[in-house]
């Protein structure tokens, strides 16, 4: 069985699969490096042929002795308590993408490394800016209107959260716009929680409101109080470090005038 080595965030992932389609998918969407790493952070075995095509986003989490299972109609993840070793059974590429997103998000929360936030992210003058908000508020529109600025994500932004410093990594978890495979890491300068509006203006959100509004933007499947606390702690550091704005957003690219 061939092994693939991919870089996700700051982590090295060893992937093994017998499926040609899945192997192609991984090579197309992830930053692959040649040779092998002696000590990957995450090991995943991927198997094809599970469940049915996408039904909905409902994920059932259950625990069995040493194992944690995440089950959706189109994928099943069998993993261990620290998420280092996993087997993913996926129906198709779409299911596989979401399963890896689910797994990686759980991994970085558990290891207190950072968060995966449902958002797009663009670079302006060497600083990263996140666009998030309710579905339909304009995350992907903001991403498209940000051209020619470089995008670090269009759907799921990878944040490394340290005390006093938040860094964005290029995200392989894309919906439409392909990752450029940049190994750049960029400091995060702002979070914009979008609302659609006829006018462009923005307000600074109170930290507590920012935290509450960001809570449901984290890719996270609650199943243990300990991990939920970890999410809150990471969000707390995030809103202490980075300003969060509440912009009312017109569908044209002039919103950048307010940001930078």
């Amino acid at each position: 069985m061939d092994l693939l080595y991919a870089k996700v965030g700051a982590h090295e992932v060893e992937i093994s699969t017998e499926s040609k389609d899945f192997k192609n998918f991984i090579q197309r969407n992830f930053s692959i490096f040649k040779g092998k790493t002696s000590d990957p952070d995450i090991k995943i075995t991927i198997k094809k042929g599970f469940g049915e095509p996408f039904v909905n986003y409902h994920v059932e989490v259950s625990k069995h002795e040493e194992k944690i299972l995440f089950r959706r109609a189109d994928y099943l993840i069998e993993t261990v308590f620290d998420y280092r070793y996993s087997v993913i059974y996926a129906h198709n590429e779409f299911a596989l993408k979401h399963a890896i997103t689910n797994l990686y998000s759980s991994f970085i929360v558990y290891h207190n490394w950072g968060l995966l936030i449902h958002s797009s992210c663009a670079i302006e003058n060497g600083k990263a800016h996140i666009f998030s908000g309710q579905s339909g508020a304009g995350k992907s529109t903001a991403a498209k209107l940000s051209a020619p600025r470089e995008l670090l994500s269009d759907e799921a932004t990878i944040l490394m959260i340290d005390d006093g410093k938040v860094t964005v990594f290029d995200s392989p978890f894309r919906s439409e716009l392909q990752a450029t495979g940049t190994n750049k890491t960029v400091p995060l300068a702002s979070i914009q929680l979008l609302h659609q509006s006829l006018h462009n203006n923005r307000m600074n959100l109170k930290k507590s409101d920012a935290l509450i509004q960001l809570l449901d933007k984290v890719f996270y499947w609650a199943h243990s109080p300990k991990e939920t606390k970890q999410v809150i702690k990471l969000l707390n550091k995030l809103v202490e470090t980075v300003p969060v704005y509440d912009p009312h957003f017109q569908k044209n690219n002039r919103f950048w005038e307010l940001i930078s």
Partner: protein
Amino acid sequence: MARYVQKSSYESTHLDNEWIILNTDDYTVTKLNDIGGFCWSLLEAEQTLESLTQAVGREYLETKVSEREIEEFLSQLMECGLVKYAV
């Protein structure tokens, strides 16, 4: 006299004079202002309406808070699943 206490020692986060209490049993969050957060922290031990009202009066000299307001606040915290009657 009824005595009140935290239902469980839920995690709280303090941000710019506001508090966020995370109920890890129901996966809900509750936001409190400064005085609310002060009361929450006292409720680690059993409290009565009288003891809470007096403590708030000592801590916040500028703000007048009545026992009735404290009672309303406590019933809201009970609805949010954060506080219970002490038995």
